[in-house]
């Protein structure tokens, strides 16, 4: 700064001061005035400062609002997969085990893997499909389609099922056979493949449920029509009824039937009655029709930790004079099963008695099965059981078996 401008400033300041405080020297009054002025200025400053801070914080809340709306967007898009019209879900079960049959060497049973695919559109449609993947005795991979159906929900009390579905007859096949549900490592005699109970069907089905009265009781139903089973003929006799679900109808007549069930929650009781009728033909005899008829009854009663279940089923095939196997036959099976979860433990003993009656002595079987399960979780089981089998002496169905299985339902 030049000395000239400095001098000029000083002069200006002195002039301003002289003008502002003309009586500055030696007077109390002007001093007070000056104080008052300073106070006024301080107040103004304070006010200004407040305004500035308010403005600043106002800006911050705007920033915050922007941040929040951004977050909301993010949360919304993160939720999208939960709220889509289409749900894709993979469920299923898998098991592995060991079977030691009297008069045969013990064998590890192959790991069987049954994934279930679910594709659902809103509450209108559910496609469900379950392939069963395993290996056979020679190590070849086998893939069977247990079921694959389109379920169209028609309101609150009905669904139309089309495709291949588990037989709606009885309870074992449709409700209990997955290894993480079945309390024993084996199916009751007559309820497996080629037994007395139908396994699956290809066709259409209408099923659903409705309240029974004003309380919590419910009635549930399933009516179906399908291609029906076929009979396997060997050495002039019907060897067995094949009911895995056929994609053809050799006899040209459909089989139709269903099940009606009652559920009484207060008694913890389920009851079911089933029936089906139609025609069947031999697997090699397309033009020869036979009458076909199934009847069944089932129940489940679960007071507390104890559970008692039972089921009866009879499958009847009529005579056909012109067939290679003129005589028909009757396949009849039933079982009773009791299980009990012990105290507060994860142990569950099971006892089952079952019988199968067929037209062939070697196929008939009486069976006691005694098992003990350990429940790692509600869907992870270790099972060990011993079957006491009684059939025609020398037949495989007469041999007792020890079975061990580990199963997981997911």
């Amino acid at each position, binding site marked *: 700064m030049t000395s000239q401008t400095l001098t000029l400033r000083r002069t200006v300041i002195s002039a301003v001061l002289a003008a502002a405080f003309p009586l500055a020297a030696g007077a109390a009054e002007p001093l007070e005035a000056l104080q008052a002025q300073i106070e006024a200025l301080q107040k103004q400053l304070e006010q200004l400062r407040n305004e500035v801070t308010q403005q600043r914080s106002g800006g911050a809340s705007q920033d915050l609002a922007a941040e929040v709306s951004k977050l909301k967007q993010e949360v919304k898009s993160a939720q999208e*997969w*939960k709220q889509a019209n289409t*749900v*894709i*879900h993979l*469920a299923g079960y898998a098991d592995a085990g060991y079977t030691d049959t009297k008069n045969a060497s013990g064998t590890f049973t192959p790991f069987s893997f049954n994934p*279930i695919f*679910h594709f*659902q559109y809103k*509450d209108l449609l*559910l496609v*469900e499909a379950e392939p069963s993947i395993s290996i056979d005795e020679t190590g070849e991979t086998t893939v069977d389609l247990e079921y694959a159906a389109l*379920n*169209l*929900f*028609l*309101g*609150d*009390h*009905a*669904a*139309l*099922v089309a495709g291949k579905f588990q037989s709606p007859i009885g*309870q074992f096949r*449709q*409700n*209990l056979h997955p290894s*993480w*549900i079945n309390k024993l490592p084996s199916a009751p005699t007559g309820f497996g493949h080629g037994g007395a109970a139908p396994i699956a069907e290809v066709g*259409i089905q*209408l*099923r*659903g*449920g*409705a*309240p029974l009265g004003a309380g*919590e009781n*419910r*009635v*549930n*139903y*399933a*009516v179906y*029509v399908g291609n029906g089973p076929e009979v396997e003929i060997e050495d002039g006799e019907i060897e067995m009824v094949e009911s895995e679900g056929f994609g053809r109808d050799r006899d*040209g*007549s*459909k089989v*139709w039937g269903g099940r009606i*069930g009652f*559920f009484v*929650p207060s008694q*913890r009781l*389920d009851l079911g009655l089933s029936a089906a009728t139609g025609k069947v033909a031999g697997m090699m005899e397309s033009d020869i*029709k036979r009458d076909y008829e199934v009847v069944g009854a089932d129940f*489940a009663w*679960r007071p507390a930790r104890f559970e008692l279940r039972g089921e009866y089923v009879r499958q009847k095939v009529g005579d056909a004079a012109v067939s290679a196997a003129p005589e028909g036959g009757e396949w009849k099976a039933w079982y009773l099963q009791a299980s009990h979860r012990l105290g507060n433990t994860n142990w569950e003993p099971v006892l089952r008695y079952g019988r199968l009656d067929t037209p062939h002595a070697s196929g008939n079987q009486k069976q006691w099965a005694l098992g003990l399960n350990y*429940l790692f979780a*509600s*869907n992870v089981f270790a099972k060990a059981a011993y079957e006491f089998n009684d059939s025609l002496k020398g037949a495989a169905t007469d041999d007792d078996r020890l079975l061990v299985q580990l199963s997981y*339902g997911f």
Partner: protein
Amino acid sequence: MNWTQSTTTRLVLVCAAIALGAAQLPAAAAQRDAAPKADFVRGAKLWASNCTRCHIVRDPKDLRDDQWIASMYHMRLRAGLTGQDTRDILRFLQESN
């Protein structure tokens, strides 16, 4: 195909059943839209009484909300639940996992 009388009767019956079902469709959609909201408490009760009928009861924590949707409709078919029972139980499961 052998057009026996019984086959024809049966086919007619089946067609009638399907037609009946199809006729229900618009009504079904309306019913869905007008359906009462899913009831948590009712759902909890129904879960306790229904979900032990065939297998050991599954923990709501076993599945995510979206997975429960498919599983519950799967179970609706298995157990013959009504649509309302299904929605109530689903709400209970989704809010308890």
